[in-house]
């Protein structure tokens, strides 16, 4: 067999690392999005991405250790994400009512 194909086979093998790296990339993308976005709604969505990357890590490790505990943590994270979204969107609505804007840079009345 050709040596290159063996190499390819090894590369095609999906290990825990792939998932962890993917989660890390997602986390950093979410963080980046939170920082560079001015739109407060998309910032909230980026926070959801952050939570999802955490979930992915937990679930991958749950699979790796063959323990379901990670799944439970993921469920709890989902619940918290739901609460976070509800509260965050409530805040967005009341902010929009007062400022007619969803630009995060307009909400700086507490600046020093």
């Amino acid at each position, binding site marked *: 067999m050709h040596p290159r194909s063996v190499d390819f086979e090894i590369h095609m093998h999906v290990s825990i690392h792939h998932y962890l790296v993917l989660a890390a990339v997602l986390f950093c993308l979410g963080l980046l999005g939170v920082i560079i976005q*001015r739109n407060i709604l*998309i910032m909230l969505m980026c926070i959801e991405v952050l939570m999802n990357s955490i979930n992915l890590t937990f679930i991958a490790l749950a699979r790796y250790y063959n323990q379901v505990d990670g799944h439970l943590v993921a469920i*709890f994270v989902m619940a918290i994400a739901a609460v976070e979204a509800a509260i965050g969107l409530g805040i967005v609505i009341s902010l929009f009512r007062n400022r007619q804007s969803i630009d995060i840079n307009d909400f700086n009345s507490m600046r020093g």
Partner: protein
Amino acid sequence: MNPYFFYAFATITVLMVVLMILQKNPITGAMCLIVSFFSLAGLYVLLEAHFIAVLQILVYAGAIMVLFIFVIMFLNLKKEDLKTGRRPFYQFAALIASGALVTFLVVQYTKIPPVSFPESVAGFGTVEAIGSLMFSKYVIAFEVIGLLLLVGIIGAVLLGKKENHD
């Protein structure tokens, strides 16, 4: 078959998240995010977490994102509300910082030799397994989360309520 699926889902997820963070239109961003959630659900299926995969769709795509889109439509944003301003320094700094973070994490992960997944035990990730654990070991956490949800509901209602005095 597994690697192809993994790469496909991973690519879609990352691509959609990237698209989302570059959007200025929140609806488009939300739709990108929904797609990425679906592919994440696919990844969960690959990890034999069927229940979580379904929950991912049900909770994230079905409830949270609906809420998002509802709010976006409720706000009825005009074109001029969606400003784009150039803040090159902060964007650059954030890019550098998150790039550093991800590089760092990846470097740290790759220091460990790659280990493939072991064979999953019987009944892994089923509703029964999760349920029995949730109502025994994690029952307190479960109750606390329930309380948290209640608080969240009340808080959201109070926040969204129109003030009476104006």
